[in-house]
């Protein structure tokens, strides 16, 4: 029994405890305790029925906790009566757990942590390590989240859009520490796609697979960022790309377009190009138009300007950028890129340097510094050439 299989059992076990009458917060705590015990005990002494083992240990944990809490005495008495077996299947319970953990009343960071624990089966320690915070801090964040949704029952329908956004956030955290959050997000999105047939779930899964397929080519030595046009496309995972494209195509035939499907379509067009020069920018612009119509997001408008710049030339790109607020993250980077393509190297170098000062990550900052240096060097060479040196 490997850890991944063990983690897959977690939502079902929480579901069993809740159906037996435990409240979500206590059930989740009890299952987390059982999980930690399982991780310690199973490598040497694996149980024959892992799920039954987890249910049994978690249930005893829950009863112990309930008994030790005097204020819960009344509920404890109620538990001694044989609980009615709920009509819901384990599958439905898992879907409801997704909705509950991504409850709209939770701050996004808390929803992410709770989802990773209750649906993903990660331990608090693993989640803390992935987000580079002390375990106690993460434990507090998770208990605060559970207090906030206390009283929300598992049978209320949830907001699928919030669930998808939470999984998207997990995916974007990428990779740090012992847990690969991108792979975890894909696993959870696969599970969610098996539970519901909403085209946007398929769209998000396709988007993740298509981005994940390019991962090996995205960074160079020392975590250096490699832009799409310079990536070694032979490193792209063609199996993941084929899977992502197939899932996306099936979703698109349902004719219920959403932002994740549109983003996946753009990613698919990039994945489809054998070289950067072969990229179908005209079609990418069309998908950005769809995406903009769906979201009206300034970030989409910004990215669309890059695509327009590739499809119709730098001036068209700069015109497309006109309506975007300069306070937006990466605005200067995009403006620098288009300005360079338009031939104004002096201004482009300044803009890249300015963009590097407002970058939101170290790899991005370093990349933009390098771009400023590259353009500046081209200027110096150009000046020397003009002087005949």
């Amino acid at each position, binding site marked *: 029994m490997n850890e991944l299989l063990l983690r897959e059992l977690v939502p079902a076990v929480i579901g069993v405890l809740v159906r037996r009458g435990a409240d979500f917060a206590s059930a989740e705590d009890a299952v987390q305790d059982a999980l930690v015990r399982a991780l310690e005990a199973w490598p040497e002494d694996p149980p024959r029925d892992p799920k039954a083992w987890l249910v049994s240990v978690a249930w005893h944990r829950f009863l112990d906790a309930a008994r030790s809490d005097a204020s819960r005495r009344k509920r404890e008495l109620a538990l001694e009566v044989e609980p009615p077996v709920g009509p819901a299947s384990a599958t439905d319970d898992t879907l409801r757990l997704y909705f509950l953990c991504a409850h709209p009343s939770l701050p996004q960071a808390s929803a992410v942590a709770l989802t990773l624990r209750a649906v993903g089966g990660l331990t608090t320690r693993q989640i803390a390590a992935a987000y580079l915070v002390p375990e106690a801090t993460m434990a507090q964040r998770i208990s605060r989240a559970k207090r906030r949704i206390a009283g929300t029952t598992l049978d209320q329908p949830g907001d699928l859009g919030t669930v998808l956004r939470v999984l998207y956030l997990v995916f974007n955290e990428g990779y740090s520490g012992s847990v690969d959050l991108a792979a975890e997000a894909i696993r959870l999105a696969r599970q969610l796609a098996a539970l519901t047939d909403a085209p946007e779930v398929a769209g998000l899964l396709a988007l993740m697979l298509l981005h994940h397929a390019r991962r090996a080519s995205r960074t160079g030595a*020392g975590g*250096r960022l490699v832009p799409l046009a310079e990536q070694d496309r032979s490193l792209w995972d063609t199996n993941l790309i084929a899977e992502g494209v197939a899932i996306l195509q099936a979703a698109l035939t349902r004719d219920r377009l959403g932002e994740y499907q549109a983003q996946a379509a753009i990613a698919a067009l990039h994945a489809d190009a054998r070289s950067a020069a072969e990229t179908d920018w005209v079609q990418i612009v069309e998908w950005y138009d769809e995406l903009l119509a769906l979201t009206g997001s300034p970030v989409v408008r910004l990215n669309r300007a890059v695509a327009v710049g590739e499809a119709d030339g730098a001036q068209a790109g700069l015109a497309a950028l006109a309506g975007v607020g300069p306070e937006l993250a990466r605005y200067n980077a995009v403006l620098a890129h288009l300005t360079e393509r338009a031939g104004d190297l002096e201004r482009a170098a300044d803009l890249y340097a300015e963009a590097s000062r407002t970058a939101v990550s*170290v790899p991005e900052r*370093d990349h933009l*510094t390098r771009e*400023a*240096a*590259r353009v500046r*060097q081209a200027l110096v060479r150009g000046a020397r050439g003009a002087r005949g040196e």
Partner: protein
Amino acid sequence: MKYLLLKHYRGAPAAVNDVPMDRWTPEEVDAHMQYMYDFAARLERGGEYVDGQALAPEGAFVRYDGEGRPPVVDGPFAETKDLIAGWMIIDVESWERAVELAGELSAAPGAGGRPIHEWLEVRPFLADAPSATE
């Protein structure tokens, strides 16, 4: 003993080889990054590295402004204020070793491939508890 190495955007004396990074060549930028990366990796292997983070230039001074009032924000940083670009915490045997390592870090290659000779601030951590033997 733990020491904090502070790298400044502003506020420290100017580096000897003081050329803004966007005026280096891309190869010089890469060499600089690689040096920093290798330095941290070497300290980590040798058990002298604790943590390090880069900071954004944006920031502000903030203070309490009385009961029921929102904090006063004096920001963003004016040009004259000190600005910290990042920090590294090392755990080494002595002050001398901390100074030696800071010196090494300050020798990172800059414009023209020559050492940048940047001033780094080195600050010892106060211990968590008084020594049990005194």
